[in-house]
């Protein structure tokens, strides 16, 4: 049963390291370009100045991008500190979407969410909630067609918070990739009383509040 959460963490780490590697590649090339231009020179020609400025700006932007991305990853890592914590849904979705951006971009699927402002805070495992959301999103991404949408909404019910993950578009008929065994996922999320209901293009996650 443990293999599914491990696969989830593995996916996030793999995409994170890949993305950071790309950021570093750009920083390296931009710094290298400045070095190429400046090598053996006492001053920089006016015509070369735009390249130098452009490269310095690229380095600065990229570092900013990397710091943001690392912060999301750091927050994600701390979600595993305790089995129960108080958190808001908005923050865990925002973080997960940011970390899944590379995956969804490659699939050409737009990840979207809109949440009402009056949702109560959740006292549960933020990691398990993210895992449940990942399961839902991943189930669609694995069978998705390009230029489609995965939309996440939430509503407050009497004793629970109901998250709806909806796929908008056509799904691939016979996916060659393994789709997670629904029963295993249900068993994992049930540890913290979360319930999942699966339909063709809608997966509902119910969290007690």
């Amino acid at each position, binding site marked *: 049963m443990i293999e599914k959460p491990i696969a989830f963490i593995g996916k996030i780490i*793999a995409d994170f*390291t*890949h993305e950071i*590697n*790309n950021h*570093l*590649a*750009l*920083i*390296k*090339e*931009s710094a*290298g*370009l400045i070095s*190429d*231009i400046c090598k053996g020179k006492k001053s920089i020609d006016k015509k070369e100045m735009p*390249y130098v400025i*452009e*490269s310095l700006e*690229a380095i600065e932007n*990229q570092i900013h991008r990397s710091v943001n991305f690392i912060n999301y990853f750091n927050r994600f890592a701390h979600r595993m500190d305790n089995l129960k914590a108080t958190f808001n849904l908005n923050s865990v979705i925002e973080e997960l979407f940011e970390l899944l951006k590379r995956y969804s*971009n*490659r699939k*050409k699927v737009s990840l979207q969410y809109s949440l009402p402002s009056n949702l109560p805070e959740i006292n549960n495992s933020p990691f398990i909630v993210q895992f449940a959301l990942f399961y839902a999103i991943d189930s669609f991404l694995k069978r998705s067609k390009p230029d489609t949408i995965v939309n996440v909404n939430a509503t407050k019910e009497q004793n629970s918070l109901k998250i709806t993950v909806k796929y908008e578009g056509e799904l691939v008929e016979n996916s060659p990739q393994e789709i997670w065994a629904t029963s295993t996922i249900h068993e994992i999320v049930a540890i913290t009383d979360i319930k999942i209901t699966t339909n063709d293009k809608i997966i509902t996650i119910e969290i007690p509040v």
Partner: protein
Amino acid sequence: MKKTKILIIEDELELVSALTERLTIRGYDTHGVTNFTDGLKFIKESPDVVILDIGLPDMDGLEVLKKIKEINPSIQVIMLSGYGDDEKVSKSLSYGALDYLIKPVDIEELVSKIETAKLKKGGR
């Protein structure tokens, strides 16, 4: 002397710009694009070497490699990959890529591979 024609296909625009400029400084006739669709018209102009990112937004790098080899088998292709792409890297070599580099690349190593590619192309 005719300059070696290089095409870079890599999805990060700023990385393409910096690499293109660095290779131009080193005397190569370099073009950079961020997707295969844009790269196609340069491929038809028969570049000597294509530096190809293994993961592209519009088409998988391996598919692009196959297309390039279909269009012109004499074009030498150097793959750019990240860690963890081992399976794709080994497939790309079996599909005819000359070599590969792991990002972030060392420019002198890239130049050395371009020179090897040039020799290989000349020797065909």
